[in-house]
């Protein structure tokens, strides 16, 4: 089993050996002033004629061919400017069939291309998704998280999420509610390693705020010296802790700090020195009812738990009111947890 990571890496090496690192997209300035040509009603097809036959976006093909001066530019240009059309350096993030769409907009590119790049501009404006959804009702695909084949690779390109999944400032608190119904949508942009950074309390190498101290703007859980305040947080919202952490996780540290019950009187005792557990009950009864999860941080050892010592059948009844109505009498002697006190 311990060889698994090595074998997996070796297997994946077969994939990576044939490929080269993707070059970072270069910022190449645009060379053509579109706006004055639009204002003078110059047809887009004068220069982009071949786009009408393009069935896919191809980074290697610019679909630009400047006409000769005498052909279409002579009305305005006495001398033709010299333009060197720069090659596209980055892959397209969408798949799109211009040949199929242009007839539907009567060849009017401006229906979708609301903004065009201008000379010396580095940024390339792309049509917003709203122009797609103006015609294509994608609710079903959206609900089913089927972003492909329009979006090539959401994980690499990371568009700004739409309204439902917009990662606003309260995202840390709200994302779980959406994921319960729409985890497939999350998966369109994130693989599960991303989730694991926070959710994998049992198997992660270190908590995120330790691993990424430079990410000061991120909502990383348990930031700073969490040990100092964890016992306050577990009082405020114990269920939240139990979503990720099992009792032995707490116990493994508590034992190192001598907080856990090992039976030695020299242990550090987190409970009040008097009145905590008395023959008539004491303070521990209300404390346990209020926050049994806190008790579980040290006392969850099954039959060896200290609770069993006094609460074994015949001792003080520890069950809350109504407990008997929720459980059949036969469980007492059949379920393992009941047998601990009630016997087989």
């Amino acid at each position, binding site marked *: 089993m311990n060889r698994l990571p090595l*074998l997996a890496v070796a297997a994946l090496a077969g994939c990576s050996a044939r490929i080269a690192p993707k070059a970072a997209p270069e910022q190449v300035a645009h060379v053509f002033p579109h706006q004055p040509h639009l204002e003078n009603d110059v047809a887009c097809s004068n220069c982009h004629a071949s786009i009408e036959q393009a069935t896919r976006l191809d980074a290697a093909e610019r679909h630009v061919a400047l006409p000769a001066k005498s052909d279409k530019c002579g009305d305005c240009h006495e001398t033709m400017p010299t333009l060197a059309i720069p090659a596209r350096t980055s892959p397209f993030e969408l798949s799109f069939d211009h040949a199929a769409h242009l007839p539907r907009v009567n060849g009017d590119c401006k229906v979708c291309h609301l903004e065009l790049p201008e000379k010396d501009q580095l940024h390339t404006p792309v049509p917003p998704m709203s122009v797609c959804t103006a015609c294509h009702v994608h*609710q079903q695909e*959206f609900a089913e998280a089927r972003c492909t084949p329009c979006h090539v690779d959401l994980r690499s390109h990371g568009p700004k999420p739409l309204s439902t999944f917009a990662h606003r400032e309260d995202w840390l608190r*709200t994302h779980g509610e959406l994921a319960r119904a729409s985890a497939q949508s999350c998966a369109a942009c994130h693989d599960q390693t991303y989730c694991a950074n926070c959710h994998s309390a049992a198997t992660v190498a270190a908590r995120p705020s330790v691993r990424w101290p430079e990410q000061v703007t991120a909502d990383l859980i348990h930031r700073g010296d969490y040990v100092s305040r964890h016992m306050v947080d577990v009082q405020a919202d114990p269920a939240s802790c139990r979503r990720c952490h*099992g009792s032995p996780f707490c116990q493994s540290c508590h034992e190192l700090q001598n907080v856990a019950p090992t039976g030695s009187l020299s242990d550090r005792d987190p409970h009040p020195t008097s009145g905590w557990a008395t023959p008539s009950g004491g303070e521990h009864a209300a404390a346990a009812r209020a926050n049994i999860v806190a008790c579980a941080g040290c006392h969850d050892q099954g039959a060896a738990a200290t*609770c069993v010592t006094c609460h074994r059948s015949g001792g003080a009844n520890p069950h809350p009111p109504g407990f008997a109505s929720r459980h059949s009498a036969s469980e007492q002697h059949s379920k393992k947890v009941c047998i601990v006190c009630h016997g087989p």
Partner: protein
Amino acid sequence: MRKVMPVLLGALCLLAGPARADVVEASSTTMLLAGQQTRGGAPGQTPSLATVVPAYEILTLSARDIGNPVADHLEVVLSTWGSYDFSDLRWDNGTGSKLTGDVTTGYVKGELFKRHLVLQVGREYVALGSARMVQIDGGSAVLVLPYGFAVSGYAGSPVSQRFQSRGATVSWNPEGGDLAYGGRVSWTLPISGGPGRGLELGASTAVVKDGKDFAREDVGVDLRLQPVAQVVLTGFGVWSLAEKNRLAEATVLVTWTPQRKLHLTADFQQVAPDLFLPRTSILSVFSDTERTAIGGGVSYDVNRALTLVLDGHVDLQPTSKDLSGTYTGYDLTARAAWHARGSSAGAEVGLLDASENGYFSARLYGRRDFGPAFLAADVLAHFFRESINAEKQAFTGVLTGGYELGGGWAAVLAGRAGVTVFMERQYELLAKLVYNQTYSVREVR
């Protein structure tokens, strides 16, 4: 686990031959930490200090759009790490050995039949419905049916740390069992007018078994309603069948974005913390109390650089002073975040009031990029209502510097100093070397 991992390995080995991945992302983090942790101690005595110097190698590989004759989309993800403690064992080592490691995630995912069937096998999470983000070594499937229906299911063994036993008391896993399974059925009704609008209803079940006993036996319902683009309503409820349908958790969340700059939320949550314990735990028979939180939040983008956030809840919780009392606590957070080109800064204050203690927290942070280099600072203070270890204040500061070395490589050095309730002076150092790279094969579509 013994059955699942060979399947995963076999799939990986098969893919290494003829398969071709469109995109392969590789990430490597080599990290060295140095600090001190307290150990032991008795009342009135000073605890001893352990020096911990763990070194980590964290490796993540993701290959997607792998060309293959079967699936429309095939993906392999592996995130694993190893560590060595050069000095004393750190407290979260998880084993008794200086050399340890684990697999955080590792799965093969395939989408078939024009993406109407999604299959995933390996070490994975299940988030859908009442699964409660269970991490399993197993498999899951999502089947998209006509008329808006979908069915999903999962089965596997809940993950424990370092491959130690599952349901036993040494497992860090909160599930407390050795077999987890469940599923969800859902129905969506899209509403025209924009992506996302519509109704989704789901019903789910989540079961965890420890031997023959049920550690968890829950059923749940969930709802997502987006009547207009700006409003999203989600609701969720889960009941424990093992406890005669006691409500384990219920949440209602409404978000409203009346304009691009303004975002409002209102939420209600009721939980029974004891139902988050495995039913096989001896402590599951002692309590049946509930906690309720109700509140909301608002965030406002003052301009493109500045965002203000306010979030607060009233928390109704049982008091530890008597068996029937209720304590009304609260939590409140206010934050101002500023972003400009190459710079970020923020301030945050918080109040938490619980029945036995509470705290006021304050945080200041900032980061400034200097070309390929950056500097970040983060200062956090907590002032406790009641003393902890005879102290009422804790301060921590982190200063981090880094440099982009090029080719996907970066180096980071961080130092943390603190005065905490358990340590009069605390220092930690972190040095890490990071490699992040994306490899693409096909760029033409």
